[in-house]
């Protein structure tokens, strides 16, 4: 029995070796760290599906320089220490020449530090905290906008249409929430000339937002701006509707306010909420609509900007690998640096400006929930529907 087992073991090792060899010959292994369990799993899922769709498409068209992409995923559960360990393994053991992925800013920060230390390029897909690309890192690239610019379109919408005099900022106590709130505070003072009458943070996983909403009622702001991940956004809006806390406009800073689950969960409380976002299926970028429609037929919902960015990321990787002199980290880095392409996510070009390094700057958008659908409302030339403003008060709705 024991002997049989060891023979089997040896055989399987040998077989594994040959399979590995054959594998190495005509595929390019790419392992992507993602939150697939834990609080951020919803975002991880959207991104995983999108990576898979992009890989399928690239492979169907012959792969990258004849090599097919062999995708695999590692679950970081949104924990920086796990993300770090995964990436250390990928670079040190698997010798993967480029790292793509992660979602939360905290995780991306940890991964960026590892990538920089090990001189391996890292392409950030949807992590927003400004700090990540202001560290003078040479190997860290980010294709999504930074938090300071997330709300650009939203702020311009506020400035031109709503003209608020006062604003309340509510945010989740995470790297993403804190930096998003700080960015809005600056924008409010500098661009809008509005007074921040309330700036409050709440803990992730909070159940009861009524005390917080009570404070909002007391402060009576024109606009309530909230930065948070998924569930808190829904609970907050539901309770705002229930307490009938009136404001001229409820606005959200992307993430939890810009995924389909926001409407599914908050239902009628989500109506007329405006949110910043980086991408919508209605955009006229090449391939954007096709991607969105294919995603919808496959999974039943339109993807959020997270998915679009993940989808485009593989094309950015493909472009870089095709233009790199060889597939070593340094050559890939040079190719990424020289990237200047149009993708379904928008134009991608990594530049050093305003204190950021290797950062892609792209126009952002504002969306509004109208009749339980996300509609692009700002900038007006890209809009898919006319915005609804003034928004009817809770009392006037049925």
């Amino acid at each position, binding site marked *: 029995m024991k002997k049989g087992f060891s023979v089997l073991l040896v055989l399987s090792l040998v077989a594994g070796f040959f399979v590995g060899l054959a594998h190495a010959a005509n595929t390019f292994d790419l392992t992507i760290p993602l939150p*697939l*369990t*834990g*609080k951020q*799993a*919803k975002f991880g*899922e959207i991104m995983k599906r999108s990576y898979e769709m992009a890989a399928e498409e690239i492979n169907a068209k012959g792969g990258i320089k004849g090599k097919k992409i062999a995708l695999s995923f590692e679950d970081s*559960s949104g924990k920086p220490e796990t993300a770090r360990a995964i990436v250390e393994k990928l670079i040190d053991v698997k010798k993967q020449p480029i790292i793509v992925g992660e979602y939360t800013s905290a995780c991306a920060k940890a991964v960026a530090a590892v990538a920089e230390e090990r001189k391996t390029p890292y392409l950030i897909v949807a992590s927003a905290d400004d700090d990540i690309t202001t560290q003078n890192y040479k190997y860290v690239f980010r294709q999504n906008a930074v938090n300071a610019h997330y709300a650009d379109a939203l702020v311009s919408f506020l400035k031109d249409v709503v003209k608020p005099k006062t604003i309340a900022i509510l945010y989740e*106590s995470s790297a993403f929430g804190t930096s998003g709130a700080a960015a809005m505070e600056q924008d409010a003072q500098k661009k809008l000339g509005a007074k921040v009458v309330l700036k*409050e*943070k*709440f*803990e992730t*996983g*909070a*159940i*009861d*937002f*009524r*005390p*917080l909403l*009570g*404070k909002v*009622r*007391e402060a009576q702001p024109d606009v309530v701006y909230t930065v948070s991940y*998924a*569930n808190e956004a*829904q*609970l907050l809006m*539901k*309770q705002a*509707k*229930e*307490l*009938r806390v009136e404001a001229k406009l409820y606005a959200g800073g992307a993430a939890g306010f810009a995924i389909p*689950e926001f409407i*599914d*969960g908050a*239902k*009628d*409380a989500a109506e007329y909420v405006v949110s910043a976002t980086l991408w919508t299926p209605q955009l006229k970028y090449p391939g954007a609509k096709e991607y969105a429609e294919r995603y919808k037929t496959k999974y039943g919902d339109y993807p959020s900007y997270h998915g679009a960015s993940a989808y485009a990321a593989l094309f950015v990787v493909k472009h870089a690998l095709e233009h790199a002199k060889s597939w070593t980290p340094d050559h890939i880095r040079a190719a990424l640096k020289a990237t200047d392409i149009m993708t379904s996510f928008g134009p991608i070009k990594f530049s050093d400006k305003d204190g950021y390094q290797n950062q892609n700057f792209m126009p952002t958008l504002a969306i509004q929930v109208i009749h339980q659908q996300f509609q692009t409302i700002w900038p007006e030339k890209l809009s898919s529907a006319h915005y609804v403003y003034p928004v009817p008060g809770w009392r006037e709705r049925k």
Partner: protein
Amino acid sequence: MTSVQTEVLLQTLISGFLLGGLYALIGLGMTIIMGVMKIINLAHGELMMVAMYIAYVLFAQFHIDPYLSVFIAAPALFLLGMAIQKFLVDPVLKVDSILPENQVILTVGIGMVLANLATIIFTSDYRQTPVDYSTKAWYLSDFWKHAPIELSLSYPWSVSFVMAVIITVCLWFFLAKTDMGKSIRATAQDQDAALMMGVNVGRMRAITFGLGSSLVGAAGCLFIPIYYIYPDIGGQFTLIAFVITILGGLGSTVGAIIGGLILGIFESLTATYVGMGWASVGRFVIFVAALVFFPGGVASLLKTRKLGK
């Protein structure tokens, strides 16, 4: 105080009270187990998670209202609790070990197994039971046209609260009036004496564990219309139950009810007047304060008053 400030204070107290009622139900289950078994059941929150998933599946598959699934989830949890006591906790009690609290450690393990099983079966997606009445509320202005202030009472929160009260009253009736309830109380007070009086202590212990589990199971069903679930949700509720148990005075049911209400109201007040990020800090301030100043919790305060009379 301006009218808006009054409004905020009253609204805070209302939501603290409603939250406290639900907390009390969570704390009660742990307290009863603590009283009879003399162990802290650290899988308590995970048992609640199991009940929430039962309610979720019933809602998603058969469109059964989460409030109705109390009647399915609570008995199911009763059986689960009894099985855990009979097949896992009891055998460990009989084994000599280096650590005297090895059953407590066992409950931690049970909790982990449950959480991981849930992750395997349901993945760690957040799930909700989107009921139609989730944002419905009663408003003061609906009843009193010219009310100087506007207060609202959430429909699902109120229903959850009322059901929690009904369950608590039933529990009190069971413990105070029925034979079996008396046997359980006897076991809690003095196991050996109860044994000599002919109480089937082993059976009472199993029933108590089942009862404690079904209470927290009911709490889970009451929580799901106003919250959401994911497999790791248990930890935070174990913690809340633990704080309430300490606050209430280890094993006192009245203490647990009052403890739950205190905790709910205190958390709400902290959230309103200090900051929402501080609510969890407030929870631990109360916990430490209870340990330092009233080691016996609410129960000891009640006792000293009685003696004083």
